[in-house]
């Protein structure tokens, strides 16, 4: 049981890092609370696995501190940290039976045989591995193997957190769903902190209560799946979360109008004020395709756009639009009228975000 705190943590694989690009993890502070189910979401190479290995102790960070319940564990090896880790590819001890695999972490610390037996049976029951206990681990299917490697983490009563490094990569799609549910169930039952690394937003949002989105070695946003969707903190979160990703328009103030390239945008006065107050030349307006209002006929304060393509996906359609030179996507539900050649767009102010130097600035609205 532990709360994991990362304080001023940074890591580089180079001995003498100079530029920020040399860092796999850029300086960050973060807290994983006891008993939470967290996901660490990000594209390949963003530093997710590095961060996980630092928490488990397989890697020592270049600088900063890792604290378990306020105690510094930086120099402690993984075997002294009471942490379990499940890897991308299932790791089982081939020559041992499933029973011996599950008993292995307990036997390594000299747990009495009676206690080992009790724990192994309990964990096997939760993971539905009881029927396989006497089989050699080598002959199991990929998902059974992955359950065995999870089980090795669960048998220990002293384990304070379980870290998952993309554990469902090699699992068949229909079994993925089952295993994910199993994980949720285990989380509820054992009250263990779980950190789940993935690059799949669906996996992250079904597993975790809170998601940390990583980008270029930094956690750019930490929030519930809903927060990530509705108010992405960083343009990357906007792109990465949601399908399709968020629309971003580079904007500037010219002749008292908010413009994007050659197009003059029709936006609420609050947006106008926010753009005027921003102290940067890197300004973007972001809006999710779900929130773009699309009208098949002219309405008040709307901008006229060309319809380039309509992708009908059954219950909704994704409409590709061009507003002047700007490409936009909008989602139109099946009960709403679809535009044909031309469409009139409105950006509701409460759904708009202004991104100054890639980070979100709230636009005050009544």
């Amino acid at each position, binding site marked *: 049981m532990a709360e994991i705190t990362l304080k001023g943590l940074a890591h580089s694989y180079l001995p003498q890092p100079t530029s920020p690009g040399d860092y796999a993890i850029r300086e960050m502070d973060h807290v994983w609370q006891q008993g939470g189910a967290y996901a660490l979401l990000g594209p390949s190479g963003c530093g997710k696995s590095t961060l996980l290995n630092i928490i488990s102790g397989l890697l020592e960070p270049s600088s900063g501190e890792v604290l378990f319940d306020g105690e510094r564990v930086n120099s402690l090896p*993984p075997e002294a940290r009471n942490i*379990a880790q499940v890897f991308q590819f299932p*790791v089982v001890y*081939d020559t041992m039976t499933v*029973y011996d695999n599950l008993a292995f*972490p307990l036997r*390594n*610390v000299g747990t009495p045989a009676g206690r080992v037996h009790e724990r192994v049976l309990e964990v096997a029951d939760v993971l539905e591995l009881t029927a396989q206990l006497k089989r050699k681990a*080598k002959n199991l299917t990929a998902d059974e193997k992955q359950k065995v490697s999870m089980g090795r983490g669960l048998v220990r009563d002293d384990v304070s957190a379980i870290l998952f490094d993309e554990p469902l990569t090699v699992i068949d799609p229909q079994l993925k769903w089952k295993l994910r549910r199993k994980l949720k169930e285990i989380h509820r039952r054992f009250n263990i902190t779980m950190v789940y690394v993935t690059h799949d937003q669906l996996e992250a949002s079904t597993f975790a209560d809170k998601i940390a989105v990583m980008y270029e070695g930094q956690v750019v946003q930490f929030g519930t799946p809903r927060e990530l969707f509705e108010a992405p903190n960083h343009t990357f979160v906007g792109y990465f979360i949601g399908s399709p990703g968020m629309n971003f328009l580079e904007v500037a103030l010219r002749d008292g109008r908010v413009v994007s390239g050659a197009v003059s945008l029709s936006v609420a006065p609050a947006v106008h004020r926010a753009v005027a107050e921003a102290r940067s030349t890197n300004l973007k307006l972001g809006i999710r395709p779900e929130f773009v209002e699309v009208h098949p006929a002219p309405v008040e304060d709307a901008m006229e756009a060309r319809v380039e393509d309509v992708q009908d996906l059954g219950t909704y359609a994704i409409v590709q639009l061009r507003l002047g030179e700007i490409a936009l996507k909008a989602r139109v539900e099946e009960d709403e009228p679809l535009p044909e050649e031309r469409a009139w767009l409105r950006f509701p102010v409460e759904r708009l975000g202004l991104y100054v130097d890639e980070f979100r600035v709230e636009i005050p609205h009544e």
Partner: protein
Amino acid sequence: MNDKLYNNRAWWLILPMLLLVAFSAIIPLMTVVNYSVQDVFDAHTRFFTGTEWFRETLNDPALQAALLRQFAFSLTVLAIEVPLGISIALLMPRKGWQASAVLILVTMPLLIPWNVVGSIWQIFTRGDIGLMGWGLRELGYGYNITRSAADAWGTIILMDVWHWTPLIALLCYSGLRAIPDAYYQAARIDRASRWAVFRYIQLPKLTNVLVIGVLLRFMHSFMIYAEPFVLTGGGPGSSTTFLSQTLTTMAIGQQDLGPSAAFSIIYFLIILLVCWIFYTAIMNLQKDKQNKGA
């Protein structure tokens, strides 16, 4: 409905392969079989002898002694080379220029032809100019491979270990390199001891290369000829006369083609049998023991 077209003419495609195998294996083997059951005087005179040659060779005390010596030798070198090869592989560096340097050094003995190995060791063990022979005598040990059977045996085993342990080491090294890092990381998280890592991760992953290594080494050592022949000539007495040398003396030296052919077949069957037993035993170890209690 099975509307598959049957056309067995494709079988003709294996004809070249069949011819090749016939010339390289079947015909020579059948020639040996032919000699083993007949007494051949010349191209026109021969008598069928049945199992006589087989009975004769199996009851020949010299051959029995050579067979025992051969088993003793093969088992001894295996018992030394396998653990030693594994240990060397475990100690070899994995990265950087050291890895390449050590790899080349370890491989060196494997590149030397058999009879050259024999000659090298023959000179190496000489009391007057050989480093080892001279050195041991200077240290006060009366080392002499032409007089002492123990010295001769020890030297031949040492020579074989020097020549062939690298093969086991190389095979194991490649096996160890193929183990993903995640296994070692998982073992650390499971708090496994160094011994447990070896016993449950490294050794199981080495099983396949070790099967190849042990089979190769058994066959090789069981047929050893050139090295002891050059080094000791089979002596002193017949203490280091192994099977193939006995067989050569019989076939080439004494022209006893019938008994030699019979013995060749027995020799071949022994190697085949031992390899089969060994392979089956190892493969059985990996199977599920469904009926055994946990």
